[in-house]
């Protein structure tokens, strides 16, 4: 299991229809991206985090671990906005407008990352993928995606076990050995993946496989009222931002 998926399965919001969560977090995401960053981004982050840490009981630890990677990228990328190159002040100079620009991008991206991660932390992919046909994706593609998702954990498990075995034989003790071990791991995974796919094929044929992989999907009720309620926070955020802008202009 991957940490985010494990958290999603344990989430109390797991029984909520993915469309409702999609409207809730997607609406907030659109607010964060399309509205002026100040004050929309802090509002979006506050609403998303309140909902997630309150009723959805997302563990702050799991959230922090997941958010670490994208935030690192955002911060590194924003460092470049602080300086300007090739200007009249010299090859590399401090940009006086840089901090404001960087803060705006960090705010927007951090709010958006919150929405994305909190959706991922409350929605298992196994609930989401079979419903993607409803939004017009071809069934053959969705089936392939779901199949890759199902085979992924077995492959990841193989990778982990091979890696443990290699580490036990000092396979990662120095850089040369590391390169060799990762290469051997990749080759073994390829051979095993294909072998496993062929064995699964044989197993399915023995059970009357006709080319269809039918999977039971949990029935989750989707009430229009729930969808409207999920859209409400983003409408409120948008209204608050717009009124703030007007008030700011009026003052």
């Amino acid at each position, binding site marked *: 299991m991957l940490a985010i998926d494990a958290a999603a399965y344990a989430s109390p919001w797991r029984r909520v229809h993915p469309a409702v969560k999609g409207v809730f977090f997607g609406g907030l995401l659109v607010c964060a991206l399309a509205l002026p960053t100040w004050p929309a981004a802090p509002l979006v982050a506050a609403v998303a985090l309140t909902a997630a840490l309150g009723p959805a009981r997302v563990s702050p630890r799991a959230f922090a671990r997941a958010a670490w990677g994208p935030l690192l990228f955002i911060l590194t990328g924003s460092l470049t906005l602080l300086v300007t190159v090739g200007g009249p002040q010299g090859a590399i100079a401090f940009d006086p407008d840089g901090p404001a620009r960087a803060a705006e991008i960090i705010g927007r991206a951090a709010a958006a990352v919150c929405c994305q991660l909190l959706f991922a932390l409350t929605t298992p992919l196994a609930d989401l993928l079979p419903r993607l046909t409803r939004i017009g994706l071809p069934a053959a593609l969705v089936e392939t995606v779901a199949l890759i998702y199902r085979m992924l954990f077995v492959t990841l498990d193989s990778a982990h076990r091979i890696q443990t075995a290699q580490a036990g034989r000092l396979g990662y003790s120095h850089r040369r050995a590391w390169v060799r071990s990762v290469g051997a791991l990749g080759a073994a*995974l390829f051979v095993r993946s294909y072998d496993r796919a062929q064995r699964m*094929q044989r197993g399915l044929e023995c059970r009357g496989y006709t080319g269809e992989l039918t999977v039971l999907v949990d029935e989750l009720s989707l009430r229009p009222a729930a969808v409207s309620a999920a859209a409400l926070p983003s409408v409120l955020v948008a209204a608050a931002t717009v009124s703030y802008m007007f008030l700011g202009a009026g003052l």
Partner: protein
Amino acid sequence: MSGKPNAPTAADAAVGKATGGGSDAAPGKAGGGRRPVSQETGHGVTTVHEVLEVGSPDMHIAEGYLPWQHAAAWTAVAAPFVAHGVRSLTQAVRADPDAKLLVGAAGAFCFVLSALKIPSVSGSCSHPTGAGLGAVLFRPPVMAALGSITLLFQALLLAHGGLTSLGANVFSMAVVGPWVAYGAYKLVRSATASLDEQTSLGGAVFCAAALGSLATYTVTSVQLALAFPDPASGFFGSFAKFAGIFSVTQIPLAIIEGLITVVIVRLLSRVNPDQLRRLGVLRRNSAAPAAGQATDASEEKAG
């Protein structure tokens, strides 16, 4: 390989999982408690941090980092490539239902390969290792589809990259990277046709993986520079800044990725030459290097 003692159980478990419904994959059911249980070993859990470690900035553009106009534009640019890839993938599956499971295996392989921990200057780092190898093994159109699926999973399962920035990431990692890798592979292969198979293959694969990786890194820098031009020197100054800050990790990574891919392909050509011949990576008439495959090779020659 099917003679392994654990083969039937593994296949049964996998098939049971495929037909048994998504909710059965929920953690904790087998273990009783809330601790998720590994599907194959039955104990412990593979957390992502055991297989990979996020130690240095990776090149996935995060959610919300690009302005929405740029995100939409890159999605539009990547869409035709992905649509073409998806069409060739679904056609392959429709023509041969047996290919479905192989495509699934290839997709899972690409995802896990991209999640491997590889050595870098700043400790270890995750990196889309699979793109170059995938382009050589499965061709760039298929890789555009598999790469997009991998990136979607990375966004939702590993928090690498975003959903609105998926188009931008797909374009750099699943379209340009694989095409450059494939072009480099073909070029070096034809240039070194007179050399022996292993040298030619090794050189071609190294160039494919390293150049594909560098192309991905360059395109991402271009995407960021277009979104955030430098106030004084515009696009080019900004490109220099972004390329400079990421080159610290990305250039050594490209070389290491090339080396790792060579190791993978050399091992595969020794262990599984038939599969590589079927995928068109090894030449039809090339002799298998391992002694154990000598009969195979002579049969090929006779046929």
